[in-house]
């Protein structure tokens, strides 16, 4: 009798698991992705319309905070997918062994070749100094250092764009990176903890230029109808930020996670990116880019360290930066 009861209870549990609640896919990402002005809401609606599931975005600070969160939770993480790391972070993420192959093959519209079994890009952008139209416009980092222009940058120890600039300088000047930083020191008004503070200071008139993305003027043009902002093209090339997502190996819904990764490079996801995340989509759809993106500068040369290279040179580059700016 008792055995019978237990097996009935067991059957009920199995049945409720199979027929009851809709499956949940939890995606950890950064804050601005989930905000109501970010891509999150539109993408959630589009994916839920086709998956018969509940897609939950959970925002955790910025990209670096996101990785720290995953590391903190370890194998017990509730995330099925982590979306929002960049190539400066993927090496550390991969080393945890928490991520599984994504299994997606897609023709990506990236300015560089991309090959990564675990991490799949969903958007990308070029770092650039952004200023007001009609201002002085040096054409390289060295030329910028020679001017009296005032710039605001982010701290590479607490923000992903700050780390991007560190890599940009290293990729362009190699052994001379320390000297470039020393030359740039008198241009730097201040170093902020994150992108928001730097961009805020720039808009307040505290600096002529701010480290941001070539796509930043598109925001002012499209959302504010203000054509007064430009990104400065540097002929020595611009460092890339490629934002990627990966499947957590311990997920309980692997099929759903794989579906999401395929969805991520489809038009329904990608067409939302340009005017919500203000980055270039990893796959340009049949409609092309939104009006206004054609006015943006497109650098002739793209710079990017591979994830292992970036991880290997980070400490040295950070020490050079620190030494040069601490004088």
């Amino acid at each position, binding site marked *: 009798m008792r055995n019978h009861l237990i097996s009935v209870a067991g059957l009920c549990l199995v049945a409720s698991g199979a027929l009851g609640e809709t499956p949940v896919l939890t995606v950890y990402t950064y*804050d*601005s992705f*989930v*905000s*109501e*002005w*970010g891509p999150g809401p539109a993408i959630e609606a589009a994916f839920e319309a086709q998956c018969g599931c509940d897609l*939950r*975005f*959970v*925002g955790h*600070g*910025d990209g*670096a*905070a996101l*990785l*720290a*969160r995953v*590391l*903190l*939770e370890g194998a*017990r993480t*509730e995330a099925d997918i982590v979306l929002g790391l960049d190539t400066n972070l993927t090496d*550390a993420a991969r080393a945890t062994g928490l991520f599984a192959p994504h299994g997606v093959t897609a023709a990506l519209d990236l300015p560089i070749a991309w090959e990564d079994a675990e991490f799949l890009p969903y958007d990308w952008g070029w770092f650039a100094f952004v200023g007001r139209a009609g201002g002085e416009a040096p054409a390289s980092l060295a030329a910028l250092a020679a001017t009296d222009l*005032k710039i605001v940058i982010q*701290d590479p*120890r*607490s923000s992903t764009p700050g*780390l991007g600039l560190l890599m940009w300088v290293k990729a362009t000047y190699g052994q001379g990176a320390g000297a470039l930083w020393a030359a740039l*020191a008198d241009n*730097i*008004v*201040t*170093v*902020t*903890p*994150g*992108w*928001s*503070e730097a*961009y*805020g*200071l720039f*808009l*307040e*008139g*505290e*600096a002529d230029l701010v480290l941001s993305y070539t796509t*930043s003027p598109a*925001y*002012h043009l499209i*959302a504010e109808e203000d054509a007064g902002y430009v990104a400065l093209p540097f002929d020595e090339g611009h460092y890339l930020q490629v934002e990627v997502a990966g499947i957590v190996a311990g997920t309980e819904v692997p099929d759903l996670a794989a579906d999401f990764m395929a969805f991520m490079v489809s038009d329904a996801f990608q067409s939302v990116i340009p005017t919500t995340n*203000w980055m270039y989509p990893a796959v340009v759809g049949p409609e092309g880019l939104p009006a206004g993106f054609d006015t943006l500068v497109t650098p002739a040369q793209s710079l990017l360290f591979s994830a292992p290279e970036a991880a290997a040179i980070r400490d040295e580059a950070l020490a050079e*930066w*620190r030494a040069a*700016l*601490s004088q």
Partner: protein
Amino acid sequence: MARGPVAIGAPFARWPGTAAAVLVLALTLGTLAAVLWRAGGVGWAAGDWQVVRFTILQAALSAALSVTLAIPVARALARRRFPGRGLLITLLGAPFILPVIVAVLGLLAIFGRGGLVNAGLGALGLPPLSIYGLHGVVLAHVFFNLPLAVRLILQGWAAIPAERFRLAASLGLPVGRLLERPMLRAVVPGAAMVIFLICLTSFAVALTLGGGPRATTVELAIYQALRFDFDLGRAALLAAVQFGLCALAALAVWGLAVPDRMGAGLDRVAERWDGAGRPERLADALAITLAALFLLAPLAMVVARGLPGLAELPPSVWRAAARSVVIALASAGLAVALALALALRGGVRATLAGALPLAASSLVLGTGLFLLLHPWVNPATLALPVTALVNAVMSLPFALRVLAPAVARIEAGHGRLADALGLTGWRRLRLVTLPRLRGPLGFAGGLAAALSIGDLGVIALFAGPQTETLPLAMYRLMGAYRMEAAAGAALLLLALALGLFWLMDRGGRGDAAA
């Protein structure tokens, strides 16, 4: 509350205070131990000594300057009566409770490259001043902490019994030497230490206005270790160093401070006969005007910039604001209860426990709590209660600094009578202590509520999708290029923080003429 058997000579049961101290200990040192345990070892980087040096230097300068400037302002406010004085005192408290980035943008609107000061200098053909560097960090810290110093010292003045001033006046004795100097000697070291400790754990001010990696503080190094290197060992060691520095500072103050032997008066507003001469009146007017200009002009800029953005605020920001108010009220109630328990228990251990959160790194505290909770529950489901609790503990030192001297004064003045009447425990609290403690309770609660509403620290680590608070919403607006809406949210935050503080402080002061 304290209803159980009470030892002879102890008017209040000790266990509520002991329980509060244990809770604080668990949240500060316990979370540090959790991080250390998970890390399995400690690490120290080569540049960390320079970081420690800068941290101490800026904190010492900020504390010294804040307190030095606060003395004339507090003295002027203590001996002058003018219309709007109460409102001015409330407004002067605003910088202390503002979220850092709001205050920094307000300061920049005045002192920045494109600010009013440089516009004025430019009009006069003078070269522009730069706010960025050590002096900028100190300027911002003085902006934040001058109001706190003024309030703490003003309380010292208010605590001098009116009878003493009357006596001094009738005997023609120098008020400064007899009454004010002993009071300052008792109050100033403590105020300076609190501000030193606040500045010691500063992070965003030092980074934004410091102008570069020279201005790295220990808290920033902890942030870096946690966020970018995921080096828990280094974070734990740095947090331990921060505790050590704070302990040294506290010990130093212990040696300096002398106990307040002023005795009790009759709870009256002091009428002053000194300082009636024209030079004193001029000096007082000047001190009040300069302080008001320095503290209120940046706030006025926050208001001016925020007004257009208010209309743009989406409904989610209003919901976040409501959530923040609830957290702030819960956190204020908790902070005041903890502080009262510690103040009634008294003794060195309670005082130490009450000061401990000042030395804690909120990042390490949050991380440690996360590590402790994560095996048992999903931390996101506890985001709001945890935020209220941590905010309460972080504002406990301020609440205790307000309540402890007041409780001690009440005991000194009325304790013997209460003993003679056999009043102990809850009845003594209700009949003797609480009625005389209304003012300090309101001030402490208002401070805790305002500090909690502007806090971004812990919620950022715990927040799930439905638990956004107002400061977090403001940062998310900034992160989405919505600077104007963010300015609106900043204004809302300023209004809510000040409103909560004002309501509680006013409620506490009742109809006292102060």
